[in-house]
């Protein structure tokens, strides 16, 4: 009975990992690749490790495996976010058909600053203020 459960869990884990690797090849863009691999590979590894716990049925091994699963669940989103952030700032381009880019124009590549306002608009507003000051000097 336990063998059947081990077989089901390990096979589904392996298939999820295969989906992740196919997605890594087929996706057109670095950001889409990050989003595919984080989710599918984390689920696949979790299922494979669960198969190991079911097979051994020992308390010390179960705690060890759950520590590994918890660690992977904690660190996979963090590393994906870090790589996505670094790749956006280093100028990796988005796919030509992607619709949303919320950070467009909010990141200054020269000073490496991220602002909540539009950088270009901010520069224009500062120019206007300077011109106004030139025209009407304050007392």
């Amino acid at each position, binding site marked *: 009975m336990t063998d059947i459960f081990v077989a089901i869990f390990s096979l589904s884990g392996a298939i999820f990992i295969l989906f992740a690797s196919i997605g890594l090849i087929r996706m057109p863009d*670095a950001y889409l690749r990050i989003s595919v691999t984080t989710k599918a590979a984390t689920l696949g590894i979790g299922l494979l490790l669960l198969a190991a716990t079911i097979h051994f049925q020992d308390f010390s091994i179960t705690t060890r495996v759950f520590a*590994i699963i918890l*660690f992977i669940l904690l660190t996979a989103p963090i590393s994906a976010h870090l790589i996505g952030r670094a790749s956006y700032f*280093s100028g990796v381009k988005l796919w030509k058909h992607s619709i949303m880019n919320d950070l467009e124009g909010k990141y200054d590549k020269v000073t490496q600053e991220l602002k909540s306002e539009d950088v270009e608009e901010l520069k224009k507003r500062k120019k206007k203020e300077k011109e106004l000051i030139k025209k009407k000097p304050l007392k």
Partner: protein
Amino acid sequence: MTLHEFIFYIVIPILSISMLLILWRFLKGPSIVDRIIALDLIITIGIGFIAGYSILTNRPSFLDVAMILALIAFLGTVAFSYYIQKRNKK
């Protein structure tokens, strides 16, 4: 079909095929970011290999290696992203 045959003939070959596909992306990858993602996924699949192999050989002590490998994968990814961000600063 026993469990050992199942894991030996089905699960581990699927993992090997996915490893080969990722290796292709690792060699081809247009930017350095793709290569880092592929490296991260290769180490993650290594953890899966270790889990399958510990079932196959009935030796649970291999799972300690899996824990350390998970730690190293996270540290490596963080270090690479930090390096990419610092590299562009002039």
